[in-house]
């Protein structure tokens, strides 16, 4: 019982409902149609019979008139044939069983007179009717009754009226009956065909509707949470309704997500705008990179403090925050131009990362900014993006300096190597025979080898300074000996340029604590630079003074000098002065850096007094008192 009920409810609620519903509709419709058709056919038959009967009566009246106009058949010379011919023609057009014309009891003319035998005697009479009499004759086979007609024929040639009797067949001919039913059948067939088509269409539509209804009933409690569960699986193929339904579900899901995101964004914007200096805004203001949020292609929704500073916007107001502006070479113009350029013709921002570089002007060094344009594709907001601006000037300078350093080091290594190889091959070829010349060749090779070693030492020192592994072998350092040796090492180079190299020392010089070799590198680097950047016939003076707790070594020249703008730069690693006169000389940009780092590790420093075109004075300050020297030995030794 239960199973039957389950099957029934299953059948009623499952996807088969349309089929069941359609079949029921078909049955109801067919019954109704059959009833209506039956009534229609009956009505048509009645109308056909009535029409047939009227036509027959009219034809009979015409026959009466025609017979009346014929000559008397009983007159001499008269012929029966005209009467029979007229009746024959009548019988040819009207379905009759028999026709006869009587004069009293005498039959003047007849067609199939035997059929009058079936006419009941009660209806037969010789009396002449005043009007046409019509009497139905019941048939023994149950068919439609025949009609017995009696009419007077008033001939102009006979004094007594004649009597015309006709037995008409009651049913219309088969051709007339078929014609009257064919129309009804045609209508029936067309209606049935149309109904079938309508049924098919309705069935397909209703099947999809039923599947949708099934989903809705099954997931009615969690529609909001699991909208996608309402999708119709396409295991059996999707028809138009279910496909459209799935699209509707997808669209609704998309809209729901968009609404949720929009609500969240609005809430975040509201909080940010209301709070003004809220925690998040404050945090973003503190970020060292510039951050800009752009909405609707060009509306600046947010800009943090760094971005405002870089682009010259007011931090507290948003009225001046616009992406418009003339193209130009300064940072803000270039950055704004880049942002505008990343907006495509379709109103969407294209992702891009570019470095914007400004030119050096009015004492301001060239700066580099890396700009990221990150498009946001939330919902339908295509013209939305976040801009990140980072000052990479230092990195770019360092990168350029490193490249320049590699170039310079390569050159500095190859130049002495060239001389060494050239002289070595020349010596081995036996081209020089003079022992003095041979000795000179060996001296050149030795000198260039020393130059190479010094360069390699410098590079190693830089590496050690970089990783903090430089080791000072602290001992008592005799300043007089240190400076005398330093001057002696470069005297040959100075003489090549006819430079007057002087060493001016006080009578008494104290010893200091320090690493003699490292300090020798300092003196060598300072003297090397002084000679390199002093023109021929110039002067370089090396001096030393003891003052307070410090010993001050000075290296003074009357060379090309250093622009005030470059005073700090020349001590930076891999950096050299930007003066063309400096650039024309080879150099690695590590000499002054190494010198200052070594001095600083001794607890001192190097100061620079210089003016472009008027020479330079480097002042090396080193501690010499026992206390500081002891501290140095414990802090750096080892």
């Amino acid at each position, binding site marked *: 019982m239960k199973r039957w009920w389950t099957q029934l409810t299953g059948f009623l609620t499952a996807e088969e409902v349309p089929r069941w519903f359609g079949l029921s509709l078909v049955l109801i419709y067919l019954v109704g149609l059959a009833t209506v058709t039956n009534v229609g056919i009956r009505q048509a038959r009645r109308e056909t019979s009535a029409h047939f009967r009227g036509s027959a009566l009219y034809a009979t009246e015409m026959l009466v008139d025609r017979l009346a106009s014929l000559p008397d058949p009983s007159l001499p010379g008269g012929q029966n044939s005209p009467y029979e011919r007229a009746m024959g023609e009548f019988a040819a057009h009207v379905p009759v069983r028999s026709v006869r014309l009587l004069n009293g009891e005498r039959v003047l003319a007849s067609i199939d007179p035997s059929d009058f035998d079936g006419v009941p005697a009660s209806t037969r009479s010789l009396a002449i009717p005043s009007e046409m009499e019509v009497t139905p004759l019941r048939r023994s086979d149950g068919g439609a009754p025949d009609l017995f007609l009696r009419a007077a024929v008033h001939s102009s040639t006979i004094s007594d009226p004649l009597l015309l009797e006709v037995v008409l067949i009651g049913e219309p001919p088969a051709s007339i009956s078929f014609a009257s039913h064919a129309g009804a059948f045609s209508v029936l067939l067309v209606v049935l065909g149309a109904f079938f088509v309508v049924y098919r269409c309705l069935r397909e539509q209703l099947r999809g509707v039923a599947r949708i209804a099934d989903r809705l009933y099954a997931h009615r409690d969690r529609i909001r949470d699991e909208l996608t569960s309402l999708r119709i699986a396409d295991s059996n193929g999707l028809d138009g309704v279910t496909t459209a339904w799935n699209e509707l579900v997808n669209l609704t899901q998309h809209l729901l997500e968009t609404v949720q995101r929009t609500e969240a964004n609005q809430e975040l914007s509201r909080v940010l705008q209301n709070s003004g200096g809220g925690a998040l805004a404050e945090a973003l203001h503190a970020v060292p990179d510039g951050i800009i949020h752009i909405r609707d292609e060009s509306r600046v929704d947010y800009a943090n403090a760094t971005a405002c500073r870089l682009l010259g916007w007011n931090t507290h107001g948003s009225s001046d925050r616009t992406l418009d502006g003339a193209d130009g070479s300064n940072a803000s113009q270039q950055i704004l131009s880049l942002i505008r350029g990343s907006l495509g013709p379709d109103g969407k921002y294209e992702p891009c990362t570019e470095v914007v570089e400004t030119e050096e002007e009015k004492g301001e060094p060239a700066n580099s900014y890396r700009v990221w344009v990150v498009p946001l594709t939330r919902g339908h907001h295509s013209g939305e993006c976040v801009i990140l601006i980072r000052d990479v000037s230092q990195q770019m300078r360092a990168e350029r300096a490193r490249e320049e350093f590699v170039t310079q080091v*390569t050159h500095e290594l*190859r*130049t002495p190597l*060239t001389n060494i190889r*050239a002289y070595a*091959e*020349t010596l081995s070829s036996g*081209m*020089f025979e003079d022992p003095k010349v041979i000795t000179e060749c060996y001296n050149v090779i030795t000198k260039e080898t020393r130059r190479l070693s010094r360069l390699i030492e410098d590079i190693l020192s830089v590496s050690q300074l970089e990783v903090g592994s430089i080791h000072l072998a602290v001992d008592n350092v005799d300043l007089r000996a240190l400076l005398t040796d330093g001057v002696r090492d470069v005297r040959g180079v100075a003489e090549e340029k006819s430079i007057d190299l002087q060493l001016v020392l006080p009578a008494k010089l104290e010893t200091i604590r320090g690493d003699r070799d490292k300090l020798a590198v300092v003196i060598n680097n300072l003297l090397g630079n002084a000679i390199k950047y002093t023109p021929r016939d110039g002067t370089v003076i090396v001096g030393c003074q003891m003052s307070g707790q410090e010993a001050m070594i000075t290296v003074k020249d009357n060379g090309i000098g250093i622009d005030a703008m470059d005073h700090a730069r020349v001590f930076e690693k891999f950096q050299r002065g930007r003066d063309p006169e400096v650039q024309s000389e080879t150099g690695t940009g590590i000499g002054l850096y190494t010198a200052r780092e070594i001095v600083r590790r001794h607890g001192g420093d190097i100061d620079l007094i210089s003016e472009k075109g008027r020479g330079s004075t480097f002042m090396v300050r080193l501690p010499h008192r026992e206390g500081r020297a002891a501290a140095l030995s414990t802090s750096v030794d080892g």
Partner: protein
Amino acid sequence: MARILLADDDAHIVRVMSIWLERHGYDLVTASNGAEALEVLDRGGIDLIVSDMNMPVMDGVAMARAIRDRGEVDVPILLLTARCDQQKLAGQMEEYRVLVYPKPFVPSKLVAEVNRLLGPVPTTP
């Protein structure tokens, strides 16, 4: 006897290469920078220029451009350089028909290159 103009501010290179080139039968003229080299070239009779790249006053590149710009297209120029981007330099100097020769070099190979450019010259005993 083919005449070679050797331009270099490094006296050691000038000295060594002078010996090598003269021993191989070339007549040698020297200059210590590009500007001097142009003056020497004006006097005529130079068949080949061997020049350093880094020189004061006028470097080897500027000298080569000046020579080509004033229409002296036939004299071969051999540019010695210790730069690390020698291939890039060679590409840049191609339009001036300048051969870039890397430092450090071995004198005998440089002489062989000169021989190749000028054709074999009988060496003096």
